[in-house]
């Protein structure tokens, strides 16, 4: 029966000792140790998460770089295309303009030619008129003297008269 009857003395000493042990260990061991362990765990957790963040950022950066590169490439392509178009346009425009200019020049030249021609014809007309008048004068004078001679003169004069 002794074996299963708690002895008073041992209960007393166990209680005292256990409370003492609990108080001392709680203050000087468990709280500092658990604090240090959980601090370290927090540290590891935050380090891991910041590493993860850094990795994500890195990924973002790489993605950004890729995107920028792609954009740049596309832009270059676009620019080249634009330049090519521009060049073609310019050539086209230049061609058109040149043709127009040429046409204009030709037209002007034609106009000038036509005007010259008109002037020349007018000139000729006046010369012919003068000539005719002078011939007529001469003829009239000759006729007045000798009919045969007059005719001969007219003929010779007509022969000499060259129409430009």
């Amino acid at each position, binding site marked *: 029966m002794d074996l299963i009857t708690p002895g008073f*003395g041992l*209960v007393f000493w166990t209680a005292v000792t*256990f409370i003492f*042990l*609990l108080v*001392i260990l709680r203050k000087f061991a468990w709280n500092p*140790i658990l604090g240090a362990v959980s601090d370290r765990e927090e540290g590891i957790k935050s380090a891991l998460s910041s590493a993860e963040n850094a990795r994500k950022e890195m990924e973002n950066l790489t993605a950004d770089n890729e995107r920028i590169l792609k954009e740049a490439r596309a832009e270059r392509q676009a620019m080249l295309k634009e330049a090519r178009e521009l060049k073609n346009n310019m050539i086209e425009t230049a061609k058109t303009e040149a043709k127009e200019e040429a046409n204009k020049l030709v037209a002007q030249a034609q106009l000038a030619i036509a005007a010259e021609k008109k002037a020349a014809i007018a000139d000729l007309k006046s010369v012919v008129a003068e000539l005719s008048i002078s011939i007529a004068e001469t003829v009239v004078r000759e006729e007045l003297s000798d009919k045969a001679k007059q005719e001969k003169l007219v003929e010779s004069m007509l022969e000499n008269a060259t129409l430009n």
Partner: protein
Amino acid sequence: MNPLRTILFSTLFLSISFIGFAKEKETTQDDAPFDPKAMILHHVKDAHEFHLWDWKGSPVSLSLPIILWTENGFTSFSSSEFHHDDEGHTIVEANGGSFVKLHEKIYQLDAGVTAIDYDSEHHPINAQKPLDFSITRNVFMMWISVALLLFVFLTTARSYKKSKDGVPTGLAGFMEPLIVFVRDEIGKPMIGEHKYKRYMPYLLTIFFFIWINNIFGLIPILNGANLSGNIAFTFTLAVFTFIITTFSGNKNYWKHIFWMPGVPVPMKIFLMPIEIIGMFVKPISLMIRLFANITAGHVIILALMSLIFVFKSVAIAPVSVAFSLFITVIEIIVTAIQAYIFTILSALYFGMATEEEH
């Protein structure tokens, strides 16, 4: 590890070992001149002196102080004054009283009595038991264990203070996994993420206190300093668990005891006494489990050793030694398992007491 599975396994394991113990004890209780029962009980129970070994027929022991509360106040003398007498023959005079030691109990003889007398059942009739605050073998071992625990864990705590980044070094590297185990496998799952912190000092203290004393009980030279197999020790720890459970009980806990929600009224009335009994059965089961397991372990090892003397043959020694070695190895596992079970069940009770309504 799944805690439920752990408990189930341990229970199974322990029930098997109980059967083993019961059988062994019977086989050793024969009528040989050598009395294994007396020897075993002597080793398992507490004692007023620390008997180490016998040398040339006389015992070599460490004397421990005897402290008694008598009518004349505290009375104290050394246990060596009994000269290893445990039969009540040697009378020690101290502080106006006469004392004898009988089966590791101190009796104060009534005034004027010079020798102890017994009734037919060998109970003293002319002596009273004063309150005994003696530093017994178990108290002594308990203090050694406390010294060791303080040394180990204060050193551990200091090593954290020294290392600035909180990296465990030396002893801390060894103790930290155990502390983290108690926190992550006992505290957190049983009590819950938000409330476990308050109970951690208690859980850690009982875990290591029980474990170290279980281990001390297995050291042969300490001769059955069976502190954690003493019912007074397990009773005290169970009372602490009971007090903490009761004082941390919230509204929900008390409601579950006195007016179980979600069942019909007759059932509520029926459940109330059961729940009230349950409140007390829980710590009582803690007390008995630890006491019985550790004591049974000691009993079987001693019983196996007794076989040599019961059969009076050296030939049986290899068998005895082999079996007791086997049991000792199991007991080493049991030291940890029992500390773990006591702690996890305490945590479970705290968790039940603080559980919120859901």
